[in-house]
Each structure stands twice: as C-alpha cells, then as structure tokens.
C-alpha cells in the first residue's frame, strides 16, 4: 500500500508540478517538455498496464477539460498509451537512460500523432506542419527532461525494484 501511494504521489506530482511550475521555466520559444506523458511513462514503468491505463484515462480527462470540444480524446489516447507502455515495461532494458528517453520520445510522438490526427479531422488544422514544428521538438525535449525525472524515480525506489 505504501508503494502504491508513493508511486501515485510521484507521478501526480510530476504531472502537476511539471505542467504548472516547471514547464514555464523550461519553455524555449513555445516548446516545453510534455510532463503529462513523462508522468504516464513513470507510472507505466513503475506499476504496469492496469494502473497506467486508469491513470492515463484520468490524466487525459483532466487535460481534456481545458479543451471541452475534444472531450474524451486525450482520455482515450492516454489510456491506450498507458496500456501500451505498461505492456512494454517487461521488455525494456532496465536502467538505461537512452532507452528511457527513447520510450518517452516515442510516447510523445504517438500521443501527438493521434491527437493531431483527430484534431485535423474535426477542423482544418495543418497536421503535418504542427507535427514537425511542434511535436517533434517537444518529443525530443521531453526525452531529455525525462532522464533526470526517471533517475529520480529510480532513486526513490519506484522503478526496477525487482532488480
């Protein structure tokens, strides 16, 4: 139960503090790390598919509330992403920052790919332009920032405990 609380506290704090406090500081020309995806990766690697699916759903729902016209979209994407990341957990080489960064980069890219596709389908958003000018830099930046966050999670004993 203690681990359950610690893991949930950590990923929620990462998502909340990262999005509210750290994002504005790290922002470079409108490009900032996506702490919601980083926190979802932390949750998935720490706890597995089931918690990551539920956590992703609620995280997405909260994000959706900022844009009610697409209500449910991020909840769906993050649920699927959480499930996929959780399933991936057992197949990853543990403790390698490059692997962790790559997972975060791919997760951000997949998230943004689906989200922008949905958004472009409902409006006339320039999908490719946004993907290459926003999503790719955000993914790379998130991968960079995720390394210390995941190291912190390891340091707290939340990841790779069976190792």
């Amino acid at each position, binding site marked *: *139960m*203690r*681990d*359950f609380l610690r*893991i949930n506290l950590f990923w929620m704090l990462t998502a909340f503090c990262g999005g509210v406090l750290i994002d504005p500081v790290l922002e470079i020309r409108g490009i900032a790390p996506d702490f919601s995806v980083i926190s979802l990766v932390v949750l998935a690697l*720490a*706890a*597995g*598919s*089931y*918690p990551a*699916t*539920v956590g*992703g*759903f609620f995280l*997405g*729902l*909260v994000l*959706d*509330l900022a844009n*009610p*016209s*697409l*209500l*449910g*979209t991020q*909840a*769906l994407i993050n*649920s*699927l992403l959480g*499930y996929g990341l*959780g399933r991936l957990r057992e197949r990853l080489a543990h403790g390698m920052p490059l692997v962790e960064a790559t997972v975060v980069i791919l997760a951000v890219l997949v998230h943004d790919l689906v989200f922008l596709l949905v958004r472009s389908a409902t409006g006339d958003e320039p999908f490719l332009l946004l993907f290459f000018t926003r999503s790719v830099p955000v993914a790379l930046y998130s991968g960079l920032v995720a390394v210390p966050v995941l190291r912190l999670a390891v340091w707290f004993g939340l990841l790779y*405990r069976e190792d």
Partner: protein
Amino acid sequence: MRGGPAGISQRGELAVLALCSLVSMILILLPGEARIQVADRLGRVLTAPYWSARNFLDDVAALRGENTRLRKELFSLELETAAVVRERSDRQRGAGCALAEGFNGVLAPCRVVTRRRGRFATMIRISSMEPLPWKSWQPVVNRDGMLGRIRTVISPTEAWVELMTAPDFALGVEFVRTGLLGVLQPRGARFFIEMVGRDEDVRRGDLVMTSGITEHREDPSGLSKGVTALRGIPVGKVRSVQVPNDEVFKEIVVDPVAACDRNETVFVVLPGAAAGEPTVEQP
C-alpha cells in the same frame, strides 16, 4: 500495482482498457452542447478546486503588488505635501531661500527578508522588487518614517540596512516647529536628541524630521564618512524634555515614529533628479 491492486490478469487489464476506451468514446461521441456541459460538470469536480486556489493566490499577489504601489504613491504624496508646508513655514521664519524644502527623491519598495540582532548592530536585510542603483547610507523608511540606512549593498536587489536602534547610529535631525537642529542617537532602548542648547524652545510632542545636514562619523579604518540625507523624512516625536542643572544641553527623549516590528513594505529613498546623490567623502 505493486503494493496495491496487484496481480490483475491480462484479461482484467484488457477489460479496464476497454472500459476506459468505452467511456472516452462516449465522451467523444456526445453532441457538442452536451459535451460542453459534461466537461463543465467534470471540471467542477476535477479542476475547479485547483483553479479556485490558483486564482485566489494570483489575486492575493496582484493585491499585494497594488497595495505596495499605492502605499508608495501615498507616502510620496504625503512627503511632497509636507515639503510644501515646510517651505511655507521656512519662509515665515525667514530660513532663507537656499534651504531645501525636503523630499524630492524616489521611493523604491522593498521587503524585509532577514532581521539580525547582534550586540553591536540591529540590522535588516531587504530585497527590492527590481534592481536598484542603491548605495551605502541611503535612507530606508517605512510608511511612518525613518527606519535606518543602507549599510552594505549585497546585489542590485538585496542590501543590509542599519536600523536607527544600532548603537553607533547618529542622525542629523530638525524640529519641525522651530527648525532647531540636533543629532539623534540611540542609547539603550531610547533615542536622545543631543546638541540642543538648554535655553532652546523644545516642547513635548514636537515633531522631529531629518535635517538634510551631513553627518560625519569615524569608521574603524580611520576614514570619515558622511551622507547628505534628504530633508523632511519623519523621525519621531518628543516624549520628554529635561534640563539638568549641570548640563549645557537639554536632555530630549524621542519616540521614533517608525519601527521594524511589523512585516511590511519598506522603501529606499533614492535621490531624485535634483536631490543630489548621497556622498561618501574621504578627507
């Protein structure tokens, strides 16, 4: 989850995923108006407490900033009004045209971040809201009047201030009613005005302000340092006046009008365009 709902089967995980996906799809497929209403209801539960708290804190910060600005404006106006009144009274008592009527500086709002009490000094550390061109010996005041002077500049936004209660503090002062000059010095917990002749007209309740006259003092390195403080900053009110039989000067005790016992905005008095910068002289 480890330590929590662990041990769920793959089928269970898929069921959870299907449920989350189903709920998400229902939300996505809601008609436009209903979707907005559902988002509104969910927002009241999930995000409204955060936004309420954040808006409240933003409002508090904005109010504090506004309050600081208003206090600065008000205090500046009060000092300027007092300067005009003083100019008139100076003229009435024939003080001469060369006497500066008083405040024409700029007030820079700062907050107190540290208070240090030692055997030989009572100091505060202040932090300004923006970088300031401050220098040692510039006066520091609060809404009521003189608090002390900048002793050490740490950075463009931080400085140590020597309060009037520091044992070696001395300040050139003037009685507002008569224009009489003296030197204010702390002794223990009380403030005395010295160098006022025994036959001079000083009454209980007389207001005392900075005189704008340079005060010299020796520092350990043997240098004589002086500062031209602005005239007209309120300092205190005369509590008692005594004339000891064996003394040439009156014994005047003053209650300071300002104190640093409350957490509030303080102001550094920066010289205005015509005020002349505080000088540090070396003989």
